[in-house]
């Protein structure tokens, strides 16, 4: 008799196939995260020459030293969708962070923005691409929002954007690969830093006993 119902063995096969696919996708995701983490740690330890227990200012100084340029941190009232901006001007780099954020979140945002700055190791081609791309991180926002984002920048930066090779990165979404990479950097590197006086004091002992520098 033909009932039209799916035979039990087919349903079982479908479950197995689905489970296999889920496992495969979980494995791929895990590997992708592991690669990103390795890359973030390599930049932190090898390119910047930093060790666990460094402070945010040491990360900023290391970027400035390796790039041979001044890196300035600023706070600004950014819009609700925007938490950080990285501007590379001809003579210096400036990072804006929203004033509406907790102290820990501000550190995360600054780490994200600082990771946009290309390091000499990344090669001339990548640096050239970065500098040629004047604005990034806005793929999913409309022109009105972009204009609003631009309005938070000092007029001289907007003017420079239009006239000289000035690059701007907005932390809004992770639609761009560069945004995702920077966010991964911030996600992993923040765990290595001493974020306040307490973690500076107890980081090494916490690390020894709980495998965590900060909680």
């Amino acid at each position, binding site marked *: 008799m033909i009932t039209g119902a799916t035979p039990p063995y087919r349903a079982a096969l479908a479950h197995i196939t689905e489970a296999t696919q889920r496992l495969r996708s979980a494995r791929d995701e*895990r590997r992708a995260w592991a690669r990103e983490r390795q890359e973030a740690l390599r930049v932190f330890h090898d390119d910047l020459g930093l060790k666990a227990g460094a402070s945010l200012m040491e990360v900023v100084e290391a970027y400035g030293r390796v790039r041979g340029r001044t890196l300035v941190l600023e706070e600004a009232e950014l819009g609700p969708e925007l938490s950080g901006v990285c501007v590379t001007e001809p003579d210096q780099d400036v990072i804006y962070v929203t004033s509406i954020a907790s102290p820990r979140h501000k550190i995360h945002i600054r780490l994200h923005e600082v990771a946009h700055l290309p390091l000499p190791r990344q090669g001339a081609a990548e640096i050239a691409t970065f500098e040629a791309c004047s604005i990034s991180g806005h793929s999913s926002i409309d022109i009105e929002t972009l204009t609003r984002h631009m309005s938070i920048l000092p007029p001289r930066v907007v003017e420079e954007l239009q006239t000289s090779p000035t690059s701007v990165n907005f932390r809004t979404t*992770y639609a761009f690969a560069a945004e*995702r990479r920077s966010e991964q950097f911030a996600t992993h590197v923040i765990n*290595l830093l001493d974020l306040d006086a307490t973690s500076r004091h*107890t980081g090494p002992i916490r690390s020894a*006993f709980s495998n965590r520098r900060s*909680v």
Partner: protein
Amino acid sequence: MWIDAVTVINMIIATATGTLGIGKAMSARHEKELTLWLTSSVLLFAAAIFLLATPVVYRAVGAITSPNLSGLLVPVATLACVAHAHWLTQLWQPDRRTQVALRRAAMIWGPVYGGAIVLMVGLYATADLGPAAPLRFAAAYAHVPQVVAFQLVYTVALITTVVATVRQCRALALPGRPDFAGELKKSVGFFALALGFDLVNVAITLTAMIGVATGHAGLGDIAETAWLATICSCIAANWGLGRMVVPTLLEEFRDDRVLEPLWKTVTDGAPGVILAPRSWWNRLNTRVTLGRRITEVRDGEKHLSPWWSVVPGLAVEYQVTNQEGRRVPGDQQDQAWDLVAAKDAATLLYAAQLRRRIGAPTPQQGERLMKLPGMDVSISEERAHLVRVARHLTHPTVLQAVKLAHAKAASTMQG
């Protein structure tokens, strides 16, 4: 029977200690944290000690090289373990972590450890030894002057270094969250206890050796019981170094779960703040998962900022202060209550509900909230604060405050 029991116990302890050491090494690979490397190394050394002291391994190593080589390797490895512990306690205290302090400590203690090990190796090499004597090397060869000198050098070096290390453990100052600092102190206590048991071992061994050397052969039998002190030492060290690892993972997992409703509330209309969907496999990496959760909650909160209003927070305060005679939040019956967290929760819940209503106006100029009450929470308190906010999302007072805020907005519109 005793030897069989020691063999089984040693193998279990060596496996457990080695596993914990490998776990720490895997964490250290990512963190590149010296204290974590040292912790891993001390555990692997301890595992090696238990392996080498197991009679069957002792004899096997002896068959290949010198019959009592493990009798040398075990004390040398024990001194290496104490040196690790000594270094660790130096790094744990900020004022002893400076380059100058570390160099001074190395100048003082380096020759003590190095000199003792060199002397012990020299004395062992020149001693005239017979067949393997696992667990009772010193007592079995108490008639050999080099072995007596060997044991005395080991005892003096161990007592000196253990006392110095335990004193440093006792002098540790641990600021921070009281519960976490309390747990750390307990772990340091177990660590110091483990070092103390090493002294019990050398005291028993020395008694046995002196007893045999002075003609009391019966005392030689207690030499093997000294190993019980080493077993206690290793259990205390393992417990001290490992007791916080699993609870830390479980707390991270628990906090991630608690934060999920808050995360859903604030990211509901802002999918752009989510870096990647979480697979069950990635959730096992609790630290990164929790870190992402906290960051995305904060980003989601900011996306809600146009709808932040002072009204829900005021409604919470109103209920707390103006309901005399009724059970109010914040009294002793409501231990989990936190006013700042409740105000944050009410503000975010109200803002999320406003955003969901297409076309709903944002709060008027005078009602706009520019900063959440819990926005300036200290870095070390951020996670605990957000967990409290998440727990308050379903608190009756918070839900009532949100209702009051909606009622006020409706009456304003009608007016």
